[in-house]
């Protein structure tokens, strides 16, 4: 397996579980990883570069250690380092601070997550939560951001990381208040469930995953030279649908259908799904959309 500074630790551990001992051997800071709870919460989110930062070791040392147990290593480091600026933004100063030092908790081999979560839940909008730790708590920051917090971080003289969290309170704008657009409540977001249940959409979750940027190009490349093209823009309803469905029935194995369409054909989509086809789309201009229809893998 080829790894570089951006590879996630979890991937490395999945490939070779012994890597955990190697990583723990790099620096005493990583011994915490041998704690399974901590490992579980850390490893999935943390990349090699993040881990090196947490362990205060150069990324190269980290990669070198992994190279020794058989990983293929790319030493090129993407330029992501940011200089830390230690000026506290005004909305973090002059507030009551709730301090939580997690170093003793970790030293006892316990997972600090529960303590932090409890403190975060009880935090009032005007208070600041300060987490003190001896490594940069990247997973924690990700977690609390997802729970509607904003953070600010600095390192003290002893090299400890002081991370400040406060609730993300935004005053609703004029239009937001007028039309009741969904506003972000100023509190701890308990579960993702909250968001989905409030939508109350009776539709079952869609089986075709949301298309991401670049998916169209990926599929286009994948079927390069193996695509049949049709242009249905000048056909009357429901001829475009008819032409598309007829064409996919006659596609040779492994081929995809490239359609020039006026828009994404909403009423065709459920039928494509039933026939086990997926699609990607790309809007070229108003009234002109590319569509690639291809056999679903599953």
């Amino acid at each position, binding site marked *: 397996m080829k790894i570089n500074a951006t590879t996630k630790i979890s991937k490395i551990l999945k490939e070779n579980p012994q890597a955990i001992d190697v990583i723990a051997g790099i620096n005493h800071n990583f011994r915490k990883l041998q704690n399974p709870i901590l490992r579980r919460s850390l490893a999935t989110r943390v990349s090699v570069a993040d881990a090196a930062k947490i362990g205060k070791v150069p990324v190269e040392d980290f990669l070198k250690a992994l190279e020794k147990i058989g990983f293929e290593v790319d030493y090129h480091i993407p330029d992501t380092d940011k200089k830390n600026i230690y000026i506290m933004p005004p909305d973090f100063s002059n507030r009551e601070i709730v301090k939580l030092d997690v170093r003793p908790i970790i030293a006892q081999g316990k997972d600090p997550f529960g303590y932090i979560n409890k403190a975060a839940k009880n935090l009032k909008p005007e208070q600041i939560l300060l987490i003190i730790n001896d490594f940069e708590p990247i997973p924690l920051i990700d977690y609390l951001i997802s729970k509607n917090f904003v953070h600010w971080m600095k390192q003290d003289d002893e090299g400890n990381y002081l991370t400040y969290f406060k609730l993300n309170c935004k005053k609703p704008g004029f239009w937001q208040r007028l039309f009741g657009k969904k506003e972000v409540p100023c509190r701890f977001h308990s579960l993702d469930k909250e968001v989905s249940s409030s939508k109350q*959409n009776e*539709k079952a979750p869609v089986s075709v995953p949301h298309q991401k940027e670049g998916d169209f190009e990926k599929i286009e490349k994948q079927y390069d030279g193996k695509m049949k093209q049709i242009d249905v823009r000048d056909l009357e309803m429901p001829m475009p649908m008819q032409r598309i469905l007829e064409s996919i029935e006659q596609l040779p194995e492994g081929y995809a259908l490239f359609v020039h369409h006026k828009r*994404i054909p*909403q009423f065709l*989509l459920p039928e494509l*799904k039933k026939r086990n086809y997926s699609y990607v789309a*790309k809007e070229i201009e108003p009234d002109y959309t590319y569509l690639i229809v291809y056999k679903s893998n599953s």
Partner: protein
Amino acid sequence: MAKNLHTDNAPDISTVKPHFLFAAIGFLVLGILMVVSASGFFQAYYNHRLLAITHTAVLGWLMMLIFGSLYQLIPVIFDTALYSERLAKFTFWFTAASIIFLVYTFWIGDYVRLLPYAATFMYLSLFFFVFNIMMSYKNARIKNIKASFILSAVFWLLMAETEGLLTALNFKFNFYNAIHVAHLHTHAIMGLVGFFVMMIFGVGTTLIPMFLISHRLNEKLLNKSFYLLNTGIAGLVLSKYLYPNRFVILVFWSIIIAGVIYYLLYINDSYKKRMKKTLDVGMKYTMLSLVFLGLPVLLSLILILLPKSNGSRYAEIIMLLYGLSMIFGFFTTIALGQTYKTLPFIIWLEKYQKLVGKYHTPLPRELYSEKVAGVQFYLYMLFLLFTPIALILQNQNLMLIATVLFLIVSVLYNYNVWKMFFHDSEQYINKREKEILKDHN
């Protein structure tokens, strides 16, 4: 730019279909009511029989069509699923019951005992619809000018309904001093122009270029039309309430007309750039309806300029003609046209979508009788011609003939709708397969 995609935006057929069925029956009932009370057309335009007929036409026929068509079109216009299909189904039954109740109330002319209840039920059912559309808009991923037309239309519907409800309740509780006829005017402006015209324009911006197959249209015309129409309607309603000065009303009237003209320019753009040169019966109706839009424009101008002498017989006839030209000249003509385009497509989707590419499938227009549709079209034109003549000449016999023509039209329309609903796709495919086999031998 790649877009986020859903596959399941299209509504279930069981949500859409009942609306078209109710509308067809409503259209038939309308025909019967018109023949039965043909003499009602020669009384004051606000007599209870005419109110029953107007509300059958506007709610039982047109509103139901708009409900059904809009549920089907939400995915296309908003690029999102309808907010709640369960609510839509509930709304259908609730609305159906409310319409029957309301029309019955008007028919027997019971303003004091029943009307407040009927109006309340009607208000609730329309509110459910408006709520469903507004919530869908909230999730919409397309928020362009076409979507704005729809949104402002449902806003005016809510306004028209609120006023209708207040007027109806006032018959019983008398909480404000009002000339009910004056409220009838603002109710009609918001309902007919704010809701129906705006909604038909909004749906038309998607459907008409789609059926004419025209690309690259000048959407700026739509923007202008949208803002002019809304400014004009809001101004007209407010001035009727606060400052009913003829000049002010004329100014806002002109703003509305400017909005209508910009819209017609957009349609003209689409018509000129169309790929499909010959118009089928559905598009014939549609294009004609837009020409007929000139009538209410002219009549409303006459109404504004007419010297104020309340109770004048001429003014009342013109008022009645104005209402009829709107409901029958414009709305019903375009509704008949567009249902001959959308309904066959919806039924085709239901019956043939899964068979396409595997068997030889018919075109949507093969699901109904084009011959019947053609006859229906000409008879309807005759009705549109006879009605104003009968009213101007105050000729009761001619009016009776006109209403009988209308009844025949509604029977023919029902024939085609039921033919589509009972179309048997299996039978069709078997027949086609046999024919193909025969050709081979």
